[in-house]
């Protein structure tokens, strides 16, 4: 089954007061482990939400605004596409993710 993982956290902060470098080292390790296992199909770290631009539809013409689509305390810092047997396998991967305050696991619509 294919899932998207959406990594959410307070914009720019490293969780638990650890240094950014320490956290990134753990992230690299996690990414490497699961890539080797063939579970990670793709993914990226995203730049901070302040660098986002959003296009809104619904008016006469599309509107362009500065910022992410939702002004929330938690923002999406990155994503991954994973291929694993089932939700429990996805949960096992995600529970060891070192860098966000929450991670959403959403099944991908498959053809």
């Amino acid at each position: 089954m294919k899932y998207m993982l959406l990594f959410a956290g307070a914009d720019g902060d490293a969780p638990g007061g650890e240094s950014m470098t320490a956290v990134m080292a753990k992230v690299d390790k996690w990414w490497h482990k699961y890539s080797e296992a063939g579970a990670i199909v793709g993914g990226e770290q995203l730049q901070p939400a302040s660098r986002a631009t959003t296009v809104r539809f619904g008016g006469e013409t599309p509107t362009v605004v500065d910022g992410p689509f939702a002004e929330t305390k938690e923002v999406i810092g990155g994503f991954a596409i994973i291929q694993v047997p089932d939700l429990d396998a996805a949960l096992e991967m995600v529970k060891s993710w070192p860098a966000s305050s929450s991670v959403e696991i959403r099944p991908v619509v498959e053809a």
Partner: protein
Amino acid sequence: MRRYGDFDLAEDCTQDALLAAVRAWPSTGIPRRPGAWLTTVAQRRALDRLRRRKGLQARAAQLRPELAEGGDERLRLMFTCCHPALSRDAQLALTLRTVVGFTTRQIASAFLTSEATVAQRIVRAKRKIVEAGIPYRMPAPADLDQRLGEVLAVLYLMFNEGYLSSSWEIPHDRNLAEDATWLARLVVRVLPRQAEAMGLLALFRLQLARVGGRFDQTGALIRLADQDRSLWDRAEIASAVELLDRAVLLRQPGPYQLQAAIAGCHAEAASWEGTDWPMILRLYDRLLDLDPSPVIKLNRAVATWRAVSAGAALVEVEQLATSLNEYHLLHSTRAELQRELGQEAEAQRSFQRALDLTLNPAERSHLRGRMATA
């Protein structure tokens, strides 16, 4: 789900012994039910319930061959239905439907929701299982404790609904408390070294062992202090206590074992007056260490009343007045304490507030009776 907010609280701690303890003040006797609408139907139903309780042991024996086959399958199904990716409502409906075999109508009637709501909930849950890839498998050993916790929480809800509702007035043809107990037996049989599962089963058995004394001939609830303890199944109580003792030896302490120990204190006591209230108080303190919930604190206050004083208990109850403002038992407890301390006007107000907050006919009847006995 009916009274969902109550279930969140009830999940923590509600036991009949303790609800009854709230009512068990040492004055009047059995709550009076106005003679007018007393019918032979009501009597017959009440007697049916008493007969079915006595049949529980026989029924459990009959079920044993059934348990011998397919126990593992059924448990796997339970773990799937109780996966944390599903909401508690969904877990409960799905378990009742697929593991216990309730119809949608029976589930709706047991929890006072509409059939359409239950049907939709089940359809969505099944869809999520498929689309989100929830596996049909026993959980990995590393996950077992957490996953078992979900199963036990669902069984607790089932049991409480079956046991606490004045369900003799609500026509549903399945007995939730007995079904929950049967499932708890299954869990303990297939996972024999899980102390909290054993504790939960012991708790269920201790409650059911005393059910013979809970209702009078008219089907009205009898307060714990007034129950005829000769109607309790002493052999079953002793057996359930022995199960709890075995659980405790596994050294995996937890809230269900503590609740069972409290129920055990009541069940083993020869009388209300002879109950080991100081022990119950100590058990509540340990329960509060694990789960400092307001409902548990309320029940502790009742034990304080018995073990220490009404004044001390009222202080504890007043501290819960904000967090439990919508909980009828807070107000009824406060009323009884105020009455005990000679504050009758305040007691009447508290009783009224409790009355405003509960729809349960047996409880309402009881409260009206208490208000009238100034």
